[in-house]
């Protein structure tokens, strides 16, 4: 298994949480994993990018045009980070009516599930449910449990499952 995934969003949207969940899920599934994430000033609302490389890679960054999958928590980030995707790559986008992309209103799904801050998990659920990631929903549920604090676990799982359901 070799898969390069980029996670794009705004600081504060939960890009780091998704990065951790993907890393834990990949390690639990027995894959080599290396990731890169943005800390510091960018976390104050700037456009941020994380990369996740599953398989026998050495460095954490992804070259432009090489990512198989993109998770875009903010549709406005498509022109900012979309060039990292392969021409045949798949972008899962939090938004509506995105021509040529797998779009889902993850913010609305998260709100409806009672956890308005968990759009990141809803988008992950959608991508996993569509079979777009290196592992299926069950593997990610375990990773969510291992990464999330008890206080947020219920909300995160609800949003994730809402995303999975929306993908079917």
């Amino acid at each position, binding site marked *: 298994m070799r898969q390069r995934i980029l996670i794009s969003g*705004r*600081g*504060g949207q939960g890009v780091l949480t998704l*990065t*951790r969940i993907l*890393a*834990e899920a990949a*390690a639990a599934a027995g894959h*080599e*994993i*290396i*990731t*890169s*994430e*943005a*800390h*510091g*000033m*960018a*976390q*104050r*609302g*700037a*456009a*941020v990018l994380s990369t996740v490389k599953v398989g026998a*890679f*050495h*460095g*954490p*960054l*992804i*070259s*432009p*045009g*090489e990512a198989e999958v993109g998770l875009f928590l903010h549709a*406005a*980030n498509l*022109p*900012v*980070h*979309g*060039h*990292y995707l392969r021409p045949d790559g798949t972008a899962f986008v939090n938004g509506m009516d995105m021509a040529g992309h797998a779009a889902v209103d993850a913010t609305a799904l998260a709100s409806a599930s009672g956890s*308005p*801050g968990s759009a990141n998990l809803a988008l992950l659920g959608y991508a996993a449910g569509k079979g777009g990631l290196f592992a299926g929903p069950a593997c990610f549920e375990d990773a969510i449990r291992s990464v999330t604090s008890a206080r947020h676990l219920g909300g995160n799982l609800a949003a994730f499952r809402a995303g999975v359901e929306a993908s079917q």
Partner: protein
Amino acid sequence: MTRRVLLGNEAIGRGIVECGCAVVASYPGTPASEILEAVLTFSGETGHPIHTEWSVNEKVAYEVALAASYTGKRAAVSMKQVGLNAASDPFMRSAYLGVKGGFLVVSADDPGPHSSQTEQDSRFYAMFAKIPVLDPSSPREAKEMVVLAFALSEEYEIPVMLRPTTRICHARQAVPLLEPIRDARAARFEKDPRRWAATPGAVLHLHRRLTEKLARLAADDRLAPTLVPGDGTYPHTCIIGSGVAFAHTRDVLEELGLSGKIDLHQVRVPYPLATTFVNEVRPAYEHILVLEETYPVIEMQLADRMIAGRGSRLVPAEGELTPEIIRSVLVKFLGLTPTAPAAVSTQPGARPTLCAGCGHRAAFYAIRETFPRGIFPGDIGCYTLGVNLGAVDTCHCMGASIGQAAGFYHAYAQDGTDFPTIVATIGDSTFFHSGIPALMNAVAQGARFILVILDNHTTAMTGHQPTPALGRTASGQPSQPILIRDMVRASGVTFLRELDPYDMEAFTTCLKEADRHCRRAGGGVAVIIASHPCVLQDKAALAGTARTLCVTEDCTACRLCLDDLDCPAIGWDEEADRPRIDRVACTSCGVCVYVCPVRAIVPGPGSRA
């Protein structure tokens, strides 16, 4: 053996605990902040007690850890690269005097830079100080190098630097976990004034010993570069890489179908570079490419004009070596057919902003509105983002706002005309770090300016580490609180006010009063402590209690709240043709209510959440 997915900084922290380290000191700064936090976590998990501290600054952190090493115990200090500038005084001399217990200096570089005021290379600092430096290419290797660093430090009685970069610090990888060494050594400081208190007469001798140590290190086989050999496709040609640039080069060679086709050397110890390597590599190859971050440290030691690298400009002289840059360099160096240029970003991303409800926004807005022609020296932290509100004119290094405010005053005052109002802003943690000497200096030299200390009761930018004012240590133990107001008064300041900037009217009145103090006979520096807790820490307390704000029909669509306040909770409603307040993001701080000239922002009908 158990493995766990760890951030590079966590891997380094884990390595420090496993090595039986007894004292670890740090000052937070991206990309190094998580190292001490990981030491705390793993010290607790493994039941291995360690003295950990968020010191007041990097110089103090360095001195605390260094003295612990003098007692024979293992000690470590971690910081970001510009922190080493602050710690450079004890750092330089520690090379000469050496150490007893293993002493690890972690200085995390930020090529790019992503969250720093320079992209300086700490390996040059190591070379300047004459201490060995290790350059990891992955989180896993960073942890292995912590072990190597402690061993070398004790064997050679020398501080050893580990120099990770942002892409190592903030990379995640599965890392093997080992049991910590149960180190039973007790503190025993053996007095040796000719060494530990060396006078200039003894320093020359110590310098000679240092030079000898370096020669032995350069001949130490364990530290020689390693080779991933090529198959002869590219004869007399090699690539020398270090750090994450080496890791990315391996991936890019694979993308190009060139894995195992060209000799690829990894330098793990960029200084001192192994003598045999230096002597053998140049005659062995006709074409050498060096890929390293961020300055040409290895390249300079090979000192050969035939080498392609940062110096020859085949590799850009500045910036991070991302895979796309490495790829374009390899295409040129190996004479490959250029492929279509890589796709590029078609839009810049959103810029960072102060959080919705941040107390700093209220203070910055009031400062700029009260003194439209003022000069605003700023400082390092979240509040550097006051630049978005036009209330930060300079940002240099930790504590510089106060020294610069004094310099601006003296330069204007000597012209004999009316001087402009100067308002310096500095955060609470930065004030403790290096603001206090500058404030004492300003008062002693008769400067006249307003200093606003933006006190959010934490070190927010780097992840909410405690300041000395909070009365608790890194591990959460109670300690003696040191109050900002006491430090200000002790610095000789006679005008001191403390208030919450959310009260915009009172805060504005206070700014005007402070300006009068600066200008009256016998006046001087006026200090206002703008006190409001960081909303990121207090979000839980806010949720469910505050009422939402909304925009009424009275709005004239003047856009002032949108354009002048830089609040992420205020957006534009295309349909209604007026601003819209994001119910999830808004904290109901009410600053926009004050700012709106027609009072069209009012508390809404429902409560949040």
